[in-house]
C-alpha cells in the first residue's frame, strides 16, 4: 500500500510541477527567448566595437552558388572579417515575408535585399534606413548607376538601397534543334512574327498528334510581362502606380492560347518542369540569371538573343536593393558588407556567378557577367541590348496583383476563358485593391 502511495505521490508531484510549468509556460517561454535575444544582442554589440569579427544576417531569395569561388557572401566574409549568414526565402513568398518582418520590427536580419515594389514602402514606413551618411565617405559612387535605377529610386527622399545587379529577360534557344529544323538562328532584332512561325516549325509531334518537342516553352511568371510589353502595353504606370494592360496583353495571351492549342507550347500544368534544359523545348524566355544556372550543364548547344520584337523592344529589368534594416543592431557591420558587395570585386563575383551584369556601368563594361562555363554563347550583346530596352515594369506591382494576373492569363491559355476576359479580370482585380 505504501509503495502505491509513493508512486501516486511522485506522479502527482510531477503532474503538479508540469501544470505550474504549464501555467507559467507563457512567461517562461518569453523570458527565455528574450534572454537569448539579449545575449546575442550583447554579443553583437561587443563585436561591433571591435570593428571586425562581427556577424551579419542577410536575407535574399535565391540560394548562394554551391561553388565557393562564385559565392560573393563568402568573399565578403574574407574581405571584411564579418561573418555573413544568408537566409533564403523563396521568390514566391519573398515580398510577403519581408513585409511581415519589416512590419513586426524584426531585428534578427541586418541586410535585406529589397525588391522594386517594396523599397518605397519600406523607406516610407521607416523599415530601412537611409544610406547617405554612409555613402558620403564611401567608394560606392551612385552616379554610375544605370538610368533605370536612378529613376526608380527617385522620390524616396534619400538613398535607401543600392542595386545588387541588373538582370534582364532574354530568349534562350537550342541551336541543335534550330539546325535540325533548318531555321536560321535569331538575332537581337528578331521579329515576333518569325518567332511564331519558328515555334511552329520547331515543334515535333508523335504519330498520335501529341507533342514530343515544343517549339517554345510557356512564358513564366516573369516573361508573360515581356510578351505583353513588346505588344505596346505600358504594363506599369509609375505615375499612378497601377497595372496598365490592354490590347497588347490580349494579343499576346491569344497568341499563347493559340500555340498551346496547336501543341507548339506546353499547357500550364501541375508538374512544371524545365523543358528547355531537358531539350524538350526549342526556345524559352527566361531571366539572364539562367545563363549561370545552365552554365556548361546542358547536353546541347545553346545561345541567347533578346526577346523578339513586335511593336517595340521590351523586357523587364530585375534587381534588388541592398538595404539596412532600421532595427538592426549591426548597422555599421552591415554597411561594410554592403560596401564590399557593391565594390568592383563583389559585383564581379555576383556577375560571374549569375550572368547578371552589374548596375554600375563601368563595372558592367568589364564584362565579367559573360559566364565562362557557358561556352556556346557568342551573342553576349543580347544582354547589353536587353539592358537598354529594359524597364522596371511589373516588378513594381504587389505580387498578389501580378500573380493573380498570370493565373488569369494561364486560364486563358488553357481555353477556360477568352484572352479579353482574362485581361479584364486581371485589371478588375488590380483595381479592387
Amino acid at each position: 500500500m505504501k509503495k502505491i502511495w509513493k508512486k501516486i505521490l511522485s506522479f502527482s508531484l510531477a503532474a503538479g510541477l508540469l501544470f505550474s510549468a504549464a501555467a507559467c509556460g507563457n512567461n517562461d517561454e518569453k523570458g527565455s527567448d528574450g534572454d537569448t535575444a539579449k545575449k546575442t544582442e550583447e554579443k553583437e554589440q561587443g563585436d561591433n566595437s571591435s570593428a571586425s569579427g562581427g556577424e551579419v544576417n542577410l536575407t535574399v531569395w535565391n540560394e548562394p552558388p554551391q561553388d565557393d569561388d562564385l559565392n560573393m557572401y563568402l568573399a565578403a566574409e574574407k574581405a571584411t572579417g564579418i561573418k555573413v549568414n544568408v537566409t533564403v526565402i523563396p521568390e514566391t513568398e519573398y515580398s510577403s515575408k519581408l513585409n511581415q518582418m519589416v512590419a513586426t520590427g524584426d531585428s534578427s536580419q541586418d541586410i535585406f535585399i529589397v525588391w522594386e515594389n517594396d523599397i518605397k514602402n519600406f523607406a516610407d514606413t521607416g523599415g530601412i534606413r537611409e544610406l547617405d551618411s554612409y555613402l558620403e565617405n564611401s567608394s560606392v559612387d551612385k552616379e554610375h548607376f544605370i538610368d533605370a535605377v536612378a529613376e526608380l529610386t527617385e522620390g524616396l527622399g534619400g538613398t535607401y538601397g543600392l542595386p545588387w545587379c541588373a538582370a534582364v529577360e532574354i530568349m534562350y534557344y537550342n541551336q541543335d534543334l534550330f539546325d535540325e529544323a533548318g531555321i536560321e538562328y535569331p538575332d537581337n532584332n528578331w521579329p515576333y512574327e518569325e518567332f511564331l512561325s519558328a515555334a511552329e516549325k520547331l515543334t515535333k509531334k508523335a504519330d498520335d498528334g501529341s507533342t514530343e518537342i515544343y517549339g517554345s516553352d510557356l512564358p513564366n511568371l516573369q516573361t508573360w510581362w515581356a510578351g505583353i510589353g513588346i505588344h505596346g502595353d505600358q504594363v506599369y504606370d509609375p505615375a499612378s502606380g497601377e497595372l496598365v494592360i490592354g490590347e497588347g496583353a490580349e494579343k499576346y495571351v491569344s497568341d499563347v492560347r493559340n500555340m498551346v492549342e496547336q501543341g507548339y507550347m506546353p499547357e500550364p500544368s501541375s508538374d512544371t518542369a524545365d523543358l528547355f534544359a531537358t531539350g524538350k523545348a526549342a526556345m524559352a524566355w527566361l531571366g539572364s540569371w539562367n545563363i549561370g544556372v545552365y552554365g556548361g550543364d546542358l547536353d546541347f548547344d545553346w545561345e541567347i538573343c533578346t526577346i523578339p520584337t513586335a511593336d517595340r523592344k521590351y523586357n523587364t529589368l530585375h534587381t534588388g536593393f541592398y538595404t539596412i534594416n532600421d532595427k538592426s543592431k549591426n548597422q555599421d557591420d552591415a554597411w561594410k558588407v554592403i560596401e564590399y558587395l557593391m565594390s568592383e570585386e563583389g559585383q564581379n563575383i555576383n556577375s560571374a556567378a549569375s550572368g547578371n551584369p552589374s548596375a554600375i556601368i563601368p563595372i558592367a563594361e568589364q564584362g565579367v557577367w559573360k559566364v565562362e562555363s557557358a561556352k556556346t554563347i557568342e551573342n553576349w550583346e543580347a544582354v547589353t541590348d536587353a539592358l537598354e530596352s529594359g524597364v522596371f515594369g511589373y516588378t513594381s506591382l504587389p505580387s498578389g496583383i501580378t500573380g493573380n494576373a498570370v493565373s488569369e492569363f494561364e486560364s486563358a491559355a488553357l481555353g477556360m476563358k477568352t484572352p479579353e476576359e482574362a485581361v479584364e479580370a486581371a485589371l478588375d482585380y488590380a483595381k479592387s485593391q
Partner: protein
Amino acid sequence: MKGKLAKKNERTAYIFCIPWYIGFLAFTIVPIVYMLYFSLTDRKLNGLSEFIGFKNYQNIFSSSVFWNSLRVTLFYTLVSVVVTAIWALFLALLLNKKQKLQGAFQFFYFIPSVIPSVALAYSFRTIFGKDSGLLNGILSNFAGKSVSVNWLYNPQTVYFAVFAVTLFTYSTGQMMMIFRNGLNVVPKELYESAELDGANAVSKFFHVTLPMISPIFLFNIITSVIGALNGSFALLFPLASENGDPNGMTQVLSLLIYKESFSNMRVGYASALSFILFVVAALIGIIIFALSKKFVYYEN
C-alpha cells in the same frame, strides 16, 4: 457539512477549468473581437490602419472573386465530406471482412493518412502531371498510345483529381478507423434476424448496418466538415497555389484569406473574409445538428 464539501468540490472544479478560461478568453474571444474590429479597418500588413466602417464588406459582396470562392468552399466541403465518408466506410467494410493479413491491410489503408499534407499535395501534382505524370504513364501503358491528360489544370478533370487526393488525407483514415470500430459494435443478432427475413447483403447493409452506425456517421461527418474547412489550406495551398488554379476553380476561402493578407497585404480585408468564413462554419454546424435530429438513430 455536506454543503461545505460540495462547495469545496465546486471550487476544485473551477480551479481545474482555469486553463480553459484563459485559453478561451485569450485565443478565442480576443481573436473574435479583433477579427470584428479589424474587419472594419483597412489595416495593412505593415500595421497601418484606419477605420473604414463596412467598406470591406461592401467590397467583398461586390467582388466576383469572393462569390466564386464562397461557392468553391461550399462545394469543396460538401463533396469532400461525402466522398471521403463513403470511401472510409468502404475501406472499413473491407477490413471488417475477416481474412488473412488483416494487420497488413489496415496498415496499407491507414498509412497514407499520416503523410504530411504538403508531401501528399506535391506527390499528386506529379502523379497527376501532364507530361511525366504517373497516372498518364499508367494509362498510356494500358491504352498503348500516349495519354496526356492535364488532370489538375483541365476544368473537366480538376475536381476529380482534387477529390481523389482527399481520399488520402488524415480525415479519411480517421473516419475509417471510427467506422471499423462502429461496425464491430453492431449486434450480430440483428443480422441474423434480418437473414431469417430473407435479406441479402445489400438490404442488410441498408436496413441494419447503416441505421446502427448512424450516430457514428454523424460524428464522422462533423469531424470531417471541420477537417475539410481547416485542412483545405494545408492541402490546396501546395496543390493549387493561393490563386486556386486553374481559373480559381479550387480557390477556397482560406486560400483567398492568405492571398489577400500576405500577397496583397490587406489584413483588414482578410479579417472581413475570416469573419465570413467563421459565419459559414457556424451555419454548417447548425445545419448538421438540425439534420441529425431527424436522421440519426439513437439507441435510447
